[in-house]
């Protein structure tokens, strides 16, 4: 049994202008100790998905499908059970650490909060544990007395990670953990996350728009576009040899330095990510696709085996490019 299994998850936001689908049927599994990277651009539904995993979305969101964590369905479990899972089972590290920390409380108290709420530890034990956690993420234990504004961006992100580790979770969901950080600080944080995950056997779901960062950190990658996973497979395969044109574009967006192919040749995609309230017909990527075929506006391909242990949702990996399917549908 996998630690986390998501099965045909959909999330729809109810708005005044009608229902907006944010996640449209996503399935994946994450094994214990595995690191999965979820890539995609703003509005593709990746952050909605991260929040849905712990049922943290606003009330206007409607879910269908199943999210099984350790065999229990998150979407149907009781509030009490859900709270327990949120504290001890899985933690989320958000982007923008400044806004996620309480500005008027010392960081030590913020790290200690979940421990105090969910264990019967004495004050001295809590203090010791907080110090340990801080040293674990590379900050001196005495920094527990600091306020968030006294720390740099990188240090605040370390505090966020310490908070996520406070209750020994089995899964960490990191939503853009290094966005807005400098390259060197980003490298520090990624190294830290990697070593913590490896040491403690925690599973990691890391979300980012930067495929190269994910490929460097994770075992497997999934690429999301317009609320669906369009490509999924081992990190090296997805990053180095994507089968979906969108995966290829994302991989090429951040060039490899020294590669003559990208020198003075920035790679991008024409057009903009689609509006979730007004998705294109057929394959949602077809208006921007450089490898579009005539029937792409009619056929909406699902994930299909594409190479070793990988899947892609593109007519180019379907047998006979999906033409027989189109014929069947129009018949």
């Amino acid at each position: 049994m996998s630690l986390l299994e998501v099965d045909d998850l959909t999330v729809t936001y109810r708005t005044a202008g009608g229902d907006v689908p944010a996640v449209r049927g996503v399935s994946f599994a994450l094994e214990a100790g595995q690191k999965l990277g979820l890539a995609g651009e703003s509005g593709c539904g990746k952050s909605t998905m991260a929040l849905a995993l712990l049922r943290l979305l606003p009330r206007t969101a409607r879910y269908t499908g199943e999210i099984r964590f350790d065999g229990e369905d998150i979407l149907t479990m009781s509030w009490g059970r859900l709270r327990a899972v949120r504290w001890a089972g899985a933690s989320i590290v958000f982007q923008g650490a400044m806004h996620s920390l309480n500005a008027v409380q010392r960081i030590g108290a913020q790290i200690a909060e979940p421990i105090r709420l969910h264990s019967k530890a004495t004050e001295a034990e809590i203090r010791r544990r907080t110090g340990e956690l801080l040293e674990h993420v590379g900050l001196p234990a005495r920094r527990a007395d600091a306020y968030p504004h006294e720390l740099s961006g990188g240090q605040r992100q370390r505090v966020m990670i310490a908070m996520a580790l406070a209750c020994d979770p089995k899964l960490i969901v990191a939503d853009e953990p290094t966005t807005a950080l400098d390259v060197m600080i980003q490298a520090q944080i990624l190294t830290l996350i990697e070593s913590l995950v490896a040491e403690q056997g925690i599973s990691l779901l890391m979300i980012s728009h930067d495929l190269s960062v994910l490929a460097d950190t994770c075992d497997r990658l999934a690429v999301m576009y317009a609320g669906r996973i369009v490509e999924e497979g081992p990190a090296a395969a997805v990053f180095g040899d994507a089968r979906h044109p969108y995966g290829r574009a994302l991989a090429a967006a951040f060039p490899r330095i020294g590669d003559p192919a990208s020198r003075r040749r920035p790679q991008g995609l024409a057009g903009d990510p689609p509006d979730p309230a007004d998705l294109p017909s057929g394959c949602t990527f077809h208006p921007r696709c450089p490898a579009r075929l005539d029937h792409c506006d009619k056929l909406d391909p699902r994930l299909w085996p594409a190479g070793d242990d990988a899947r892609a949702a593109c007519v180019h990996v379907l047998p006979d490019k999906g033409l027989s399917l189109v014929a069947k549908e129009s018949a």
Partner: protein
Amino acid sequence: MSAPILSAEDVHVEFEARRGGGRARAVDGVNLDIAPGEIVALVGESGCGKTTLARTLLGLERPTSGRVLHRGTPLAYSSKALKRFRRDVQLVLQDPSGSLNPRHTVYDAVAEGLRIHGDVPNERERVADALSRAGLRPPERFFLRFPHELSGGQRQRVVIAGALVLEPNVIVADEPVASLDASVRGEILALLLRLRDELGLAALVVTHDLGLAWNIADRVAVMYLGRIVETGPVEKILTAPEHPYTQALLSVLPDAPGSPVVLQGEPPDPTRIPPGCRFHLRCPVLASGAAAAAGVDGACRGEDPGVLAGGTAVQAACHYARTVSSSADPAAVVRP
């Protein structure tokens, strides 16, 4: 190299630090030349002074000492002279949502420069022309849109069109793609490259993203704690860097070859610049003992490697690199 169009000559910019921390030397002696039609990437981490240097080159900040030269003439800071200067040197900011007034239409945003400079004739044609050059076609379709009706990439194109409408020769772009989606990023960079080819537009691109420099720049200048520590053509600096700081920056990129050299700690505070080489406290070459083996560790700790000259030559402000490599030209150092 043809005569530079915009230069910094030994520019220093100091600020009074908050909470009585003394004076912060945000820019601490920089020489930098931008030639016509050249794209220069100014690379560094946040707080290294790269944005302050860019603002100084734009005349938005006055240097504490040193000067900014526009076509060889020192920049005058009277409002009339500045206004003339700004027709030639334009700015593109990082956050396209913030750099457009939410109450102005696309047309007004692009025409703003023309109106400021009293260029009334052919306003409509010139706005349309700038929009289509920036890739918003047909331009008439965008005239009456408001910024909130556009995507991030389209907004950045509007900002670029607003800069182009005055027909400048230089664009200073501060992190032009940092807040854009990955797939849109390449398109905006391609636009900057195309504008250079079509209009001979020079650009100074301020960024923390070395991949961006590899994508579009001709020359790169790496900044650390208020100084340029290494500069030269992109092909050389990004593939065979000599300064340990540049080497470390490149080594931590996700798909860099070799093992990453992750520098510990944060960049030091510009109010307390270390003596000797400003990088020596974090320098992996000094820490590994290689500098001592080459006999320069004393210099690293006690001797300022100096301010690098402008121009296009390959230079690194590093005692170790100068000792071990013959390619570094000692004459490049203008002030020890």
